[in-house]
């Protein structure tokens, strides 16, 4: 089936495989995941609030309900068929640009994440960049432009406040987030995400998996909390706090443009979960049954992808769960937590691990 690809020049082969992987990841994994993530959010939220949640939509024109698993399709149809209303007072160019700028970076982050070991001869990562993590942070920081532009484009009070808040929040927490992963790279000695997973193979002290969470717990805590802030999730959902700012930056949006913000937000959460799994939870590895070595069979390849998605699901559910646990932070508390707690804490953390690594390696050298 893939013979014709092997006859192409190496450059062409890479391009073709990358295209296949992009399309596969986007349409077979990310988009269905986003739609069912929204569904999961609604169901889990309902369960936590003693409700049932959407359980009606099944296969159209039949009585089959399938626990409401047809809901995402119904939501999509609704989003597309709704009137795309553009208020007269908006700044039109930015109004169009903002949803795209939210969605595109969210998808782009996924390019560097190794979501499996190998499938056949192909590494299961779209772009195995040497600067993987730098790329991620670069792209993630683009995400803020979508929100800020949306706030500016809407040209009304609440969206504007939402945009301002998001810029301040995202910038402050990105700093903490970026610094929280520095010890990871000091320890691993590489910025490539595949190498980071490679470093996490094997076991620690004989029984624990050799995941970085056990070596760098504080890095993980800072990263996790910053990830909540970066994805605008409660308790840090100040840019779109429903109760204060109506819906913040996306107040004026409707129909598919709103759906794009929504998809962007959920894709961001998926990307953040994937990053956490990659950086701190060993990616596609499991420390037993040889599952920490790259797969040699097709089945093994799929199993690794399954392990990766399984680990991701844990964090994705955590994102939903925490929403119903903690109240929203006040703006000054948010800034206080970001600048006065996390930034110094992250710096101290870097310093601690730097000293630790220097002490252990120089000791080994002597």
């Amino acid at each position: 089936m893939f013979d014709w690809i092997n006859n192409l020049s190496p450059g062409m082969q890479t391009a073709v495989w990358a295209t296949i992987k992009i399309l596969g990841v986007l349409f077979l994994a990310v988009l269905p995941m986003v739609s069912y993530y929204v569904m999961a959010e609604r169901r889990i939220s309902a369960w936590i609030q003693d409700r049932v949640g959407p359980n009606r939509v099944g296969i159209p024109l039949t009585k089959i309900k399938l626990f409401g698993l047809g809901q995402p399709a119904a939501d999509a149809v609704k989003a597309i068929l709704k009137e795309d209303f553009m208020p007269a007072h908006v700044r039109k160019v930015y109004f169009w640009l903002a949803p795209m700028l939210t969605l595109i970076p969210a998808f782009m982050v996924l390019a560097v994440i190794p979501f499996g070991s190998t499938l056949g001869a192909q590494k299961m990562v779209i772009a195995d960049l040497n600067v993987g993590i730098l790329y991620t942070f670069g792209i993630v920081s683009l995400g803020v432009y979508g929100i800020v532009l949306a706030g500016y484009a809407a040209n009304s009070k609440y969206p504007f406040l939402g945009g301002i808040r998001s810029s301040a929040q995202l910038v402050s927490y990105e700093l903490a987030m970026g610094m929280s992963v520095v010890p990871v790279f000091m320890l691993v000695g590489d910025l490539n995400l595949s190498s980071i997973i490679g470093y996490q193979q094997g076991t620690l002290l004989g029984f624990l998996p050799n995941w970085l969470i056990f070596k760098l717990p504080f890095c993980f805590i800072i990263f996790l909390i910053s990830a909540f802030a970066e994805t605008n999730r409660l308790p840090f959902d100040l840019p779109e706090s429903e109760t204060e700012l109506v819906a913040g930056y996306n107040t004026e949006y409707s129909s598919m443009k709103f759906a794009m913000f929504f998809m962007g937000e959920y894709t961001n959460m998926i990307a953040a979960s994937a990053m956490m799994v990659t950086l701190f939870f060993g990616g596609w590895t499991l420390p037993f049954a040889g599952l920490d070595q790259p797969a040699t069979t097709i089945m093994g390849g799929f199993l690794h992808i399954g392990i990766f998605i399984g680990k991701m699901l844990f964090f994705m559910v955590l994102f939903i769960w925490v929403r119903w646990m903690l109240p929203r932070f006040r703006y000054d508390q948010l800034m206080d937590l970001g600048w006065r707690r996390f930034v110094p804490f992250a710096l101290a953390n870097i310093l601690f691990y730097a000293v630790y690594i220097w002490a252990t390696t120089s000791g080994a050298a002597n």
Partner: protein
Amino acid sequence: MIVKRPELSWWERIYLPAILGGFKVTGKHFYRTVFQRKSVTMQYPEQKWTVPEGYRGAPYLVKDPDGNTKCVSCQLCEFVCPPKAIKITPPGPDGQVADRVNAEKMPKEFEINMLRCIFCGFCQEVCPEEAIFLQKDYSLTGLSRGEMIYNKEKLLNLGGVHNGPIKKWEHKLKEAEEQESFPVKQN
């Protein structure tokens, strides 16, 4: 009164107790809903709530135990109705006679516009004949405005039979019969 503002301890200030408490509360609710199936909401059209006694639902006309129309077309309810939802057409001088023995008349037509009705219960309160009652129907639907104007026949069918303890007309009838054979006691 001065309320003391408690100082948070270091343990409390690192948010961990709040997070653990949050997990506990949400986990409990999650377990309750998912595993014990104790959601507080109900699957409405399939599952319905029991309407409590004394509930003020839609007003319907009732029949007496003999199946006669109780309404005597006095129009008090029409006058008292705050949103003017009731419209009674009296039989007129040569109209239909009442179903009931001894009753003077009954309405030729009795309409309640359920789109106007506010379920206040004044009609029930004012009715001297106990002929109209607010019953337990709360979900009134129709495909047009015309459909929502309930006529006498429909109201009587929906209202059913009222078995009140006070049988005013039976009593009146007995009295009237006694009048016929007056003086009753001749010793």
